């Protein structure tokens, strides 16, 4: 009987070529694809806001976001994704559907999105200039600070965008894009960033 191996492949597996891209000698934008994560959509049931909030607080030690923001909770990030709903993002295996199901039983419906999205982190001196070509959101530091989040569109493609913790004193913008659009948006990102010079890599860790 044949043996089956179930290789996991990111939707950007083919498109992502690690290394420099675009204008030579420039290093304006850093793109990192993050590959190993669990992502669960939590949708509060009708009238169950209080119960859900308690459950979330108990599980994560922080309040679930009720407005567009991303809340860091130790080993998870809770990202607002719409009214009565948020995403739980964690390193693969930490907060899976199976683990969260009993937590929210009766107070929220869960939907696994771990495979439905690709996660791209954008940083660098020119990150805002590059994102201004893709996003209609105002990313000025006074307006879109650390922890700000938005359910929005980039290049007519739905994304969840939030600002993570700064890295090397630079802003980091995280983009969750639907998996089947990921390669297309990736190429658009490269086109937008090429004039600034790009450094490309991927990571198995949430950064």
């Amino acid at each position, binding site marked *: 009987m044949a043996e089956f191996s179930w290789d996991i492949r990111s939707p950007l597996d083919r498109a992502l070529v690690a290394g420099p891209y675009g204008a030579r000698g420039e290093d304006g934008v850093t793109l990192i694809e993050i590959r190993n994560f669990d992502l669960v959509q939590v949708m*509060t*049931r*009708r*009238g*169950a*806001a*209080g119960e*859900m909030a308690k459950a979330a607080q108990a599980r994560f030690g922080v309040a679930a976001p009720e*407005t*567009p923001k991303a809340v860091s909770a130790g080993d998870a990030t809770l990202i607002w*994704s*719409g*009214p*009565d709903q948020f995403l739980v993002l964690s390193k693969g295996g930490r907060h899976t559907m199976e683990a969260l199901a009993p937590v929210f039983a009766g107070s929220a419906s869960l939907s696994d999105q771990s495979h439905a999205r690709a996660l791209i982190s954008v940083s660098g001196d020119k990150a805002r200039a590059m994102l201004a070509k893709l996003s*209609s959101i105002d990313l000025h530091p006074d307006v879109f600070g650390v922890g700000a989040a*938005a*359910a*929005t*569109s980039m290049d*007519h493609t*739905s994304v969840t965008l939030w600002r993570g913790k700064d890295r090397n004193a630079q802003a980091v913008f995280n983009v969750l894009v639907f998996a089947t659009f990921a390669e297309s948006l990736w190429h658009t990102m490269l086109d937008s960033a090429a004039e600034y010079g790009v450094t490309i890599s991927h990571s198995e860790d949430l950064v």
Partner: protein
Amino acid sequence: MRIVCPFCGERELGEFTYLGDAKPQRPAADAGEDAIYDYVYLRDNIAGPMSEHWYHGGGCRAWLKVTRNTLTHEISSVEPAAGAGAAKVGA
């Protein structure tokens, strides 16, 4: 045009999809054919402030009731549809 989504804040037109006049209410199942014909087909087609259904499909996926002047495109109010944000109902 920019719409202030009650959940997301001000967003640009491209994130929204338009449906139309929010005034007609879907008649009850037994309301009869005339009532539903009226609901489906007849419009006041207001020249002035009008309550409209917009969908924030490029954002939080909430359906919104937007009051917008069809003569000037000026938006005077935006509220969520009854079932958007229902988790707090009764709470």
